[in-house]
């Protein structure tokens, strides 16, 4: 099987400051890769660099699109933006960053559909209802504005907005950050269901080991902009080799 996304020796500096350094990643179809590390370890820089939000200084990002491999850093901007709104999806930590707050929930979900040329209101409406159902938002809220939604609902709406065009690769930056524990559990449940049901390939960034353990197949542990350890999720978390990973694992609160 071919990896759907592979990243080689990716570097991103902010002046002299290291954003992330020598990062590698291989993502196979249907796989979830988790990136963990403390605040400032370069997780977000890394995910932004591989998803097109930031331009990395050097490295290689290969994306498999059906029949050809695309070098994400060398393609034209128009193709890049087309990929970003069709094949790729980005779920922000703060759903307000990924949604249009002055457009109704349905309008938010429909944007990607219309940007790829769907022009039938009835069909679009049906797809919206299908996705509201999938992310467990009541259908009666379809015409409400996102600002009337709770934090958890906003996050589910953002997920629906991103998944509506069936993207191949989904990037998530702390998708459950800032949510209370029960809502977090619900979102995680939903994400796990969607990942299995739709065979999604996901790169997920989180500082929360529990989130990663629940969702991810593979894990990358970052510190000071570098990957200090990587491997199968259970293996790394159950038998951490690097001292930083050991610290991370041992500092999880046991209730």
């Amino acid at each position, binding site marked *: 099987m071919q990896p759907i996304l592979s990243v080689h020796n990716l570097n991103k500096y902010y002046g002299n400051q290291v954003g992330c350094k020598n990062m590698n990643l291989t993502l196979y179809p249907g796989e979830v890769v988790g990136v963990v590390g403390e605040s400032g370890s370069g997780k977000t820089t890394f995910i932004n660099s591989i998803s097109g939000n930031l331009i990395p200084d050097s490295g290689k990002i290969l994306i498999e699109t059906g029949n050809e491999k695309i070098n994400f850093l060398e393609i034209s*901007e*128009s193709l890049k*933006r*087309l990929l970003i*709104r069709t094949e790729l999806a980005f779920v922000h930590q703060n759903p307000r960053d990924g949604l*249009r707050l002055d*457009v*109704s929930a*349905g*309008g938010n979900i*429909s*944007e*990607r*559909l*219309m*940007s*790829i040329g769907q*022009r*039938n*209101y*009835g069909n*679009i409406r049906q797809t919206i209802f299908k996705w509201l159902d999938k992310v467990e938002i009541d259908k009666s809220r*379809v*015409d409400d504005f996102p600002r009337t939604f709770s934090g958890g609902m906003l996050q589910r709406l953002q997920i629906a907005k991103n998944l509506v065009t069936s993207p191949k690769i989904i990037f998530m930056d702390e998708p459950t950050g800032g949510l209370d524990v029960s809502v977090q559990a619900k979102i995680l449940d939903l994400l796990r269901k969607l990942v299995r049901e739709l065979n999604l390939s996901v790169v997920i960034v989180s500082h929360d080991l529990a989130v990663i353990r629940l969702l991810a197949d593979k894990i990358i542990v970052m510190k000071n902009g570098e990957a200090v350890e990587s491997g199968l999720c259970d293996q790394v978390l159950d038998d951490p080799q690097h001292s930083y990973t050991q610290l991370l694992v041992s500092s999880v609160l046991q209730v």
Partner: protein
Amino acid sequence: MNNVLKFKNKKNTFAAQDEIYNFAYLDENTKRMIRRALIKALCIPGYQVPFSSREMPMPYGWGTGGVQVTSSCLTTDDVIKVIDQGADDTTNAVSIRNFFKKTANIETTEKTSQASIIQTRHRIPEEKLKEKQILVYQVPIPEPLAFLEPRYQETKKMHALSEYGIMHVKLYEDITKNGHIETAYAYPVKTNDRYIMDPSPIPKFDNPKMNNNPAIQLFGAGREQRIYAIPPYTEVTSLDFEDYPFDPSKAPHKCSICGSNESFLDEIIIDDEGNRSFICSDTNYCNQRMENN
């Protein structure tokens, strides 16, 4: 500067009433700059060409863009008509007509068919335009994406890459809120199957008239410093959905003066009881129908 004046078209050196003005107010260098922008705009239908808009002796919002475009197109042979919401006799129309009378000393008319340049605020004349006529629109906000995407850099990119999905989000919202597309003026169009364009705040009733029009259509936005254009016989389509097609609706009434069933109507409250009357917004069209009857 002197060079330019020396080579200036002989015809354009005229005896104005008030010789302190250059022909049609603007200096020749400025007109040349605007003509360049106009030619570029005509070559790329619907594309917004930046130009360095001048201070005009009227406030922004009164048609400074349109006046600069008209001024750059005028020759001494031209006959100009100015309309404001279809009418020849409203403040904006009268003052701009007088402005060109004074600064260019050219013939003016109220008859659509006799005008070679028509400057308009928010209407297209009812009478069909012909080849060799120029219609100049006054545009307040040239960017159709402005209300959806406030970042100008981003809208430029969206135009360049034809990323117009968001435009339909607006129409989608209209339908969900009102059951139909509520946008009634400044209804977005696609020009020559490429650029999405704001037709300026004309009623959507006028949108079909832009399509395949034999006249040249020029758009000037003074404050926003943009010029765009539709060359003659260019395809202009109004955006819509397959199941909610574009509808150039009009008030279901007749003009109470000329009885026209076809023209765009203004609604007027005629007494303290709130009684209404509908009359043609195009005064010249209405008058001519009365004369002919």
